[in-house]
């Protein structure tokens, strides 16, 4: 195994493009090192991104959104008051990954690249309309988060491509987001179901929404029908029922060691309603 510590994104990408075996980018290492120790993956080349200047920054973008570098940890996001004020749902999703110790290492980009359908930070990003900056041998492109996962453990990134940063759009006024997951315990578990919702209000009425589901399909889902079920409503009981119906219709879960398909289909509707209410209340709070 060869360990590399490039000092620029260009160098990292060049290194990756030149490898022939199993290559892994190392950011927090909370997946790569665990998989290595468990004997699941033994990379031939390990490219450490932590020494690249600029990848460790949270910056406000010109349009009023946010750029979160690939090596920013969950703990750093949590401590960033302005980011938390704009996108509490994105931050709370990220903060559900692992323990306090893991939070000191784990990153949004890593959680996305690990390719788990149950990744806790991903539905929140998709609901937020987040995009990622992808750099590879053919240059830099900007891709919607929902277009990265390809299936359990797989992404649509091309060989040699890496994620440099996550871009969050401007929150604007009267917006709120939330992420909820179901686990049988209170901590240290993998989502059996995850729901991220972001919405904006005009007065009491929902004028835009994005609803994203985790752990109920091979990849994260963005469910337009679920958004439509609440847009134009004040999130009354009928809207919540329609939302639940829409997410249940979109979910195609499996039964595995973490939960049954029937359970996931039922609970995704429950969590969608609860997450929508939290997002709605946050949007109302933001309007004050």
């Amino acid at each position, binding site marked *: 195994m060869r360990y590399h510590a490039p000092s620029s994104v260009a160098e990292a990408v060049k290194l990756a493009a030149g490898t022939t075996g199993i290559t892994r980018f190392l950011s927090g290492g909370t997946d790569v090192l665990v998989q290595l120790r468990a004997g699941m993956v033994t990379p031939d080349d390990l490219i450490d991104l932590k020494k690249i200047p600029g990848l460790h920054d949270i910056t406000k973008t010109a349009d009023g959104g946010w750029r979160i570098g690939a090596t920013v940890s969950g703990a750093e996001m949590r401590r960033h008051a302005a980011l938390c004020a704009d996108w509490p749902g994105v931050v709370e999703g990220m903060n559900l990954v692992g323990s306090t110790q893991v939070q000191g290492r784990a990153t949004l980009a890593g959680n996305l690249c690990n390719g788990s359908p149950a990744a806790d930070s991903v539905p929140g990003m998709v609901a937020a309309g987040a995009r990622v900056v992808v750099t590879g041998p053919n240059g830099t492109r900007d891709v919607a988060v929902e277009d990265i996962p390809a299936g359990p453990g797989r992404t649509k990134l091309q060989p040699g491509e890496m994620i440099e940063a996550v871009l969050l759009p401007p929150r604007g006024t009267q917006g709120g987001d939330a992420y909820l997951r*179901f686990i*049988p315990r*209170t*901590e240290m578990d993998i989502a059996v179901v995850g729901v991220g919702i972001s919405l904006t209000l005009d007065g009491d009425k929902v004028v835009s929404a994005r609803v994203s589901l985790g752990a109920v399909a091979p990849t994260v889902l963005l469910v337009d029908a679920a958004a439509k079920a609440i847009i134009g409503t004040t999130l009354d009981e009928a809207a919540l029922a329609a939302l639940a119906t829409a997410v249940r219709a979109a979910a195609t879960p499996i039964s595995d*060691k973490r939960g*049954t398909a*029937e*359970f996931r289909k039922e*609970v995704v509707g*429950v969590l969608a309603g609860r997450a929508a209410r939290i997002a709605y209340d946050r949007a109302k709070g933001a309007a004050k």
Partner: protein
Amino acid sequence: MAKDQTQGYRLIGTRPDRPDGLDKVTGRARYGADISAPGMLHAAVVRSPHAHAKILKIDATKALALPGVKAVITRADLPTGLTGEDWNLQENTLAGEKALYDGHAVAAVAATTKLIAQDAAKLVEVTYEVLPHVTDVDAAMAPGAPVIREGAADHSVPEGMHPNVVRYMDFGHGDMDAGFAAADLVREQSYKTEATHQGYIEPHACMAQMGADDRGEMWVCTQGHWYIRRMTSAVLGIDAAKLRVTPSEIGGGFGGKTTIFMEPLALALSQKAGGRPVKLVMSRSEVLRATGPTASASMDVKLGLKKDGTITAAQVKFRMQGGPYIGSSPVGEALSCAFACYDVPNVMHEGYEVLANRPKAAAYRAPGSPMAAFATESLLDEMCRELGLDPLKVRLKNAAKEGTKSSYGPTYNRIGLVESLEATMAHKNLLAPLGPNQGRGVASGFWFNWGGETSVSLCIGEDGTVTVSVGTPDIGGSRASIALMTAECLGIAYDKVRVNIVETGALGVNEPTHGSRATFASGLAAVEAAKQAMAEMCRRAAAEWDIDAEAVEWRDGAAHPAGPNAGKFPPLSIGEIGAKMGGTGGPISGHHEVTATTHGASFGVHVVDVEVDPETGRTTILRYLVVQDAGTAIHPAYVEGQYQGGAAQGIGWALNEEYVYGADGRLQNTVFLDYRVPVASDLPMIDTVIVEVPNPGHPYGVRGVGETGITPPLPAIANAIHAATGKRIRSLPMSPSKVLAAIKAQG
């Protein structure tokens, strides 16, 4: 220091710091994997990926060719001709003709580094012929189930049963027909529990060395190093005395470290590698796949109750699998515990032990009792509901007490179930108001406790401080408790006594720290040894004063003239006697050895309040109360710790822990991420009440306290979920998906 409850003692009942505390919080304590030696090799184990498969060929050529690899062993390297449990242990250490469960060891490798050993293990080529498998207890005894081993059954099994049924037992007393006829309500139900693992934080680990002369040394994380010595020497065909075993500190055992899993491999590899020391440390996945969980159970219960709550008859039929070998499942204990809390005139037990393609079961905290309680205490609760009776009053009405003929045969000595029930009924938690979707459940529990083979030595130092050598590894604070009892007896300060856990060469045979026996039995022997030393110190004083030894008495850490007629001498302290002992007759020590039989049973009562989310089926433990009889609480903090720990493990077993097998018979959840023990934030602070009904069979009244506490949580939580939801769950775990399905079900 303030004493909390026990009256009449100077030190017993106080809560001093534990002697091993500083080392543990600073990381200095040496656990199994912390022991190393010069020239040491590292081992890795090759494990079967199949639940049931013939081993056609093992080819280690490529592994041995890897630079750094020093030895590979297979079953062919172990002696033949073993029988009974020795054969089972050897077969479980390294598979012979067949791999019998996912994770079964088939070969082991020693190399200069752990990474090389792991790489080499992957290069050992094993050719399997995969066979049909069975992991469920009911499926394993059904017609057509794959046969694990022909001829494994003993003579107890009725004719015509599946060969996987290897043991049958029945016992009871009274007239069942008359008992059920006398009842106003008779109900019969079936229950199932999944296997659960002890979940100790420290994985199995040892470091061992053995030369061509078969003389061996082993440092190992274990609950009982004489058991390690006996089992390991049997598996390897060497004399027990040739092997010296030293226990490390231990990061939990709960029964799972009272046997061997991989210890003989380290010795055999060392011998084959020319006597270089070998370290072998299991990963968490290896622990879950290949070390002993408890049994899974399928149980039928029938109870007869009068309208006033009197139990007229009780009957159980239990089926348990404990892996692929006879004698591993605790079906006998489960039967004996089933109705142990009650004075039942007519009682009948039947049990079947069944083989399955799962790891060889080991002891787990009150083996068998939690499953039995889940079945019997659930049905009793259901029937109390049906008759509109208070479940605590029904338990009190039928409670076993001194003189009751127990359901399993013997007549009880002084026991504390009634006192525990009364303390429960007086507790404030019973008055806490419950909201919507909340419910309260109660259950009782029992464990026999144990005495067993015990050997303890005690030495007086030249400065009057005292060293106690015991053979029971300290898991739950026994060094502190034994030091308290010794200091109490000798009339000296707690911190003047040091208790050491010594190796197999230093004492007679000791059983492990199992059966809740360490504080009871090693404590009893330490007190007897202290009394011997005290008598000798009185003799030394008598000689110095030139009076009869009978005219000297020991109090407050010193020899005194027994009365005015004995003469007027200033007292001789333990320090003064110790300083002079070389010239007054030599070293002063005490020694006691005994197979202790005067242990006293411990009964407990738990009350749990839960809230069930009606939309997700998720259960939250709101409040939890443990009331249990300790006999005498020597160090109350460690008694409370045992009560809380038992409840925590029981909560995990009740709600989320289970062995999840795929259709291929492979264990799916081999890490703590998916084998869901409770995390700290899942639990409220667990309230405890220590009831003290002293055991007449111990100098200070000690009963064991370690095991009873895991028994009531399973039914107590099922009863609380019923109260919260109106739904009765009769199989464990009561996971959210199961509870939600029950809530959604019609009716």
